């Protein structure tokens, strides 16, 4: 017998099938058996599951080194172009969503609360800049302008409210016995307090450039945002008070009091914080001069 004949005969064995009654009965039996541990609601496959299935299917091709290299180059080139284009976008532009998404991504990859709070302050500053640009925009209808301003202001508010959340977290996480940590928290709180104060102030100023008709629409919202920023600043101020109360007791009187040194040694945000504090928040001035000791004391101890 030739191979082909054998193969044909093997194919003929397809006739061997289970009894159809058994197949049906057994189906019911099995479904009853598994019914005990099935979920209550019907299962829906999410986008993630579908993506996993597709990636799994092509995983062999996808993980070829050449393909990976191409993808990497493509993604990084395309990505950086889009990112830089998005950076200059304003509400109403198609890339503005990308800009916000990029900021969120940046936040998501930032582990520490302090850094997150600082980032959000930076984002809030971006919003103020955007607000500025929208105010200066010509050739758009007042309705569109107002809508864009509302979008920016609501993003701004989200940012400052989130900063407040971070401040509370930082306060919770600071070990009251760890002097260095407290000094550090103090610096962060000072910087945040002054920066949010500044934000509130500059956003308030910006509305003055608007025409009366434009003002009516956004004024209430801006006022609310300014209030949020001030509230955040206040929280930071409370944190300053709390940390200072703790650290003051342990700070020796010989600590160096030269603010120049502090500014030189401190990180950039700290330097800015002190300057802006001096400019915008009169009650803070005393705090700064008193608190400028802390980082130095810490540095001195470290030395």
């Amino acid at each position, binding site marked *: 017998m030739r191979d082909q004949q054998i193969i044909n005969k*093997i*194919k003929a*064995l397809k006739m061997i099938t*289970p009894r159809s009654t058994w197949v049906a009965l057994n*189906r019911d039996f099995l479904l009853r058996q598994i*019914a005990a541990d099935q979920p209550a609601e019907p299962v829906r496959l999410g986008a993630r*599951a579908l993506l*996993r299935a597709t990636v799994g*299917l092509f995983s062999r091709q996808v993980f070829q080194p050449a393909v990976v290299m191409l993808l990497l180059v493509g993604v990084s080139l395309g990505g950086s172009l889009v990112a830089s284009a998005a950076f200059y976008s304003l509400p109403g532009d198609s890339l503005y969503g990308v800009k916000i998404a990029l900021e969120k991504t940046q936040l998501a990859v930032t582990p520490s609360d302090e850094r997150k709070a600082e980032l959000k302050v930076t984002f809030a500053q971006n919003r103020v800049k955007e607000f500025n640009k929208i105010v200066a925009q010509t050739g758009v209808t007042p309705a569109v302008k107002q809508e864009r301003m509302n979008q920016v202001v609501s993003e701004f508010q989200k940012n400052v409210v989130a900063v407040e959340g971070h401040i509370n977290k930082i306060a919770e996480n600071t070990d009251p016995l760890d002097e260095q940590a407290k000094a550090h928290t103090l610096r962060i709180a000072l910087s945040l307090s002054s920066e949010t104060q500044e934000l509130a102030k500059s956003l308030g100023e910006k509305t003055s450039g608007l025409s009366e008709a434009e003002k009516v629409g956004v004024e209430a919202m801006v006022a609310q945002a300014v209030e949020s920023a001030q509230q955040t600043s206040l929280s930071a101020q409370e944190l300053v008070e709390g940390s200072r109360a703790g650290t003051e007791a342990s700070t020796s009187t010989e600590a160096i009091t030269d603010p120049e040194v502090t500014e030189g040694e401190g990180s950039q945000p700290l330097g800015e914080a002190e300057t802006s504090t001096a400019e915008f928040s009169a009650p803070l001035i005393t705090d700064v001069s008193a608190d400028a000791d802390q980082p130095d004391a810490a540095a001195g101890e470290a030395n």
Partner: protein
Amino acid sequence: MKASKLQEKLLLLKLKQRDPDAFAKVYDLYVDPIYRFIYFKVPRRQDAEDLTSEAFLKVWQYLTETEETIRNLRALIYRCAQNLVVDFYRSKTRGELMEEEGQLAKVEDARQQNFLAQLEARTAVESLEPILRRIKDEYREVLLLRYLEELSIGEIADILEKSKGSVRVLIHRALKVVRELSTSNERPADHQ
């Protein structure tokens, strides 16, 4: 009926999420091939039915409990079936098997005659079943998976946990053995 690869992956994901509909679909897709796979390994139709049923239950239990990533659903079902057949023979003592084989001769004859009658009525050729029951397990498996279930070499390699090369060699040898056996059957005088 053969499931596409994507369909299989989706079924796999749904099974992981304990979807009974997906299980029913998997059952419908694979009950015939799995039954046939087991059918040639066990003495009685009843055993084949019991083990087939158990294999599907095992697959469900495994998929809903394991944390491992399963690459190939079909291979998993076949492997569950294979393990159950091994357990089936392990659980039976030698005496039980001998006894069953004695009784089996009659049942087997009746079954084969019935089957042959059907086959001859349609194709007028002699069935390969008796020959397939006589050859080594792995020879029979590769032939059935390759030509009856029409699986690719890669899929068979996954199911039998062998390399593609050794699956090809096995198919070649299996065909040779079946050829020899069928030739000797055709000449009853040479039959040992």
